[in-house]
């Protein structure tokens, strides 16, 4: 989000999922689309059927790689080098859209100068992709329009996550692919309402609609509406919160619908922090690993038991309807927050989610033209500033939100932790098609549990042979932060020297091993790359 906001002025997906169907080229990188966003993948299949060229760059050989016209497996954490290399070739060959660059962007000469440093031979050495393949990729992407870029956590969960995203924005802009139908830079959101949580001010630096807390006008507007002088210094990010607990600065943590005890890197550290906090309040629908550590547990209602709205990955605000009453004594989360606030001494009196939505509209320009009545049919995509506005299918038409598109000069930096003699293999983590995030919802589902009951580590068959590891054998995987025992799954999906572990499974938690080193700007941890050791268990 930080990367796209810097380049374009808005951190959201630029285009919509159905538009993918009419793209001429789709470049998929760091998104295992068929497993994690199957319905987005459907639109890519339709594009393929209509003749679109598909390019896949992913350290694993994913299902989309089979579909692709060109599929490459770059080394883990070498995305910036790869993208700079592609742009180097595009400029050398004159395949860029110079008219678009001149009219719509700024900072091109500085970028072009930096790209001189990334000739194909050097990029081939860093990424492991040969120079002729790099040239074919660059040509395929640059020569037809519209070209759409689709990415996900494989791009962002790095210490260079923001650099990776900015590099994708560079690539889209030098080829003139932002601000048009079926083009753009498109992050697929991993959770149903990540977009909404960001839109609604669930971030330390902004109110709803990305209005900065430090902006005098915005702060005054919200202070007046809420009858309090509001703090104007940005707060702590999630990883800074845990460090704040360690330093004794954070005494209370209120966690709603999150399970950091499984999703966050370096779980030993998370656990020791949660034990230290004086007051841990957890509001969830399941007794998660985090809830079990809480001083107070507040049972929320699930999506089928309440009303409200979700904002999907393409900025579409959709109406959620109540099907059944909340189970047991659980209550809708909005009622719990309202009542907690009142008891704390700041009364709230909302009688329905729709009443809250009316307040959202009054304070959030991008949502101002929406209403539950208008959302009832197909939802509306923000920005939707007036009651007559049809919503916005793709962003940055004719003009970027920030004015001109900003190129960034991005040098390649290796991952925070690299392999060495003690920890000689690369570990990457991710999700599978059956399960979801920390598994609290999917692992209690009998049908899904039957599909995939336990965790595993994917290892290349050649590596397994060398280490005398058999398919299905329990082995030990360790890093500088912890160790787990886990079943081996021999798979050519991962290259030699690389292993992959899905992070859904608490008993074989990949995040015991991962590295909490984080991107300096977005503060996103490097969950996708660390160094590990793989060993047979003692007989």
């Amino acid at each position: 989000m930080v990367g796209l906001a810097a380049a374009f002025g808005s951190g959201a997906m630029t285009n919509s999922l159905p538009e993918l169907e009419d793209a001429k080229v789709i470049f998929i990188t760091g998104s295992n689309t068929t497993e994690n966003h199957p319905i987005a993948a459907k639109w890519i299949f339709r594009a393929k059927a209509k003749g679109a060229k598909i390019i896949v760059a992913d350290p694993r050989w994913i299902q989309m790689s089979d579909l692709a016209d060109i599929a490459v497996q770059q080394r883990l954490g070498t995305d910036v080098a790869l993208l700079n290399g592609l742009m180097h070739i595009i400029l050398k060959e004159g395949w860029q859209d110079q008219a678009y660059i001149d009219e719509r962007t700024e900072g091109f000469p500085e970028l072009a100068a930096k790209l001189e440093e990334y000739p194909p031979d050097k990029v081939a050495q860093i990424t492991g992709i040969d120079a002729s393949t790099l040239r074919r990729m660059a040509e395929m992407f640059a020569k037809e329009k519209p070209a759409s870029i689709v990415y996900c956590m494989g791009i962002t969960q790095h210490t260079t996550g923001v650099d990776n995203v900015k590099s994708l924005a560079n690539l889209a802009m030098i080829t003139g692919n932002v601000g048009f139908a079926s083009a753009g830079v498109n992050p697929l959101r991993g959770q149903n309402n990540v977009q909404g949580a960001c839109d609604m001010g669930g971030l330390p630096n902004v109110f709803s609609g990305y209005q900065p807390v430090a902006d005098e006008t915005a702060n005054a507007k919200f202070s007046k509406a809420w009858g309090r002088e509001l703090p104007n210094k940005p707060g702590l990010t999630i990883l800074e919160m845990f460090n704040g607990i360690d330093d004794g600065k954070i005494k209370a943590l209120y966690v709603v619908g999150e399970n950091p005890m499984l999703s966050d890197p370096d779980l030993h550290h998370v656990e020791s922090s949660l034990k230290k906090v004086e007051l841990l309040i957890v509001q969830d629908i399941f007794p998660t690993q985090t809830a079990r550590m809480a001083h107070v547990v507040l049972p929320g209602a699930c999506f089928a038991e309440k009303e409200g709205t979700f904002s999907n990955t393409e900025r579409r605000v959709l109406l959620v309807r109540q099907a059944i009453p909340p189970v047991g004594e659980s209550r809708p989360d909005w009622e719990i927050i309202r009542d907690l606030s009142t008891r704390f001494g700041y009364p709230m009196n909302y009688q329905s989610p729709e009443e809250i939505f009316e307040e959202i509209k009054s304070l959030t320009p991008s949502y101002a033209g929406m209403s539950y009545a208008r959302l009832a049919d197909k939802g509306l995509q923000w920005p939707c500033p007036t009651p007559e506005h049809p919503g916005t299918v793709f962003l940055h038409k004719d003009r970027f939100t920030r004015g001109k598109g900003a190129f960034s000069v991005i040098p390649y930096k290796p991952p925070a932790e690299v392999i060495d003699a003690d920890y000689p293999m690369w570990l990457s983590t991710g999700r599978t098609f059956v399960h979801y995030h920390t598994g609290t919802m999917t692992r209690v589902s009998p049908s899904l549990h039957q599909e995939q009951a336990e965790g595993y580590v994917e290892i290349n068959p050649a590596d397994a042979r060398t280490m005398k590891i058999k398919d299905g054998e329990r082995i030990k995987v360790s890093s500088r932060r912890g160790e787990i025992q886990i079943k081996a799954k021999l798979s050519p999906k991962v290259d030699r020297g690389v292993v992959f572990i899905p992070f859904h499974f608490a008993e074989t938690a990949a995040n015991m091993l991962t590295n909490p080193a984080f991107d300096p700007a977005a503060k996103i941890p490097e969950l996708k790359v660390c160094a590990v050791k793989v060993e047979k268990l003692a007989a």
Partner: protein
Amino acid sequence: MDFRTVPTICSYCGCGCGMLLEVLDGTVISTLPMKTHPVSQGSLCIKGWNIHEFINSDQRLKHPLVRKNGQQVQATWDEALDAAAQGLRRIVDQHGPDAVAILASAKVTNEENFLLNKFSRAAIGTNNIDHCARL
């Protein structure tokens, strides 16, 4: 017999697929894809097709819990909300609002996230609010 289908939105990934929950006598018994939804157009993935199974899981939290003598014990809503509110009040009074941190959620609704943002900034008085979009 009371049978209804309720149109709503899947709560797994960010695609926001449309679904019809089949409700029989107050229980969600099945899930169907929604043909008229602009993104999913009659499709669902394996997780979406089976979403009713987690709704009905007997592992769901059904009562508030409060820790007493090291053990989490069942509590009334009054007890739990008071414990939470008074605990927060004590910490804010002793250490200031920035001693509190809040994790909002990519799983709950816009309205609920908006209230958390208001609770954090207006009630507690801190900008220490974030969520797991980074993870």
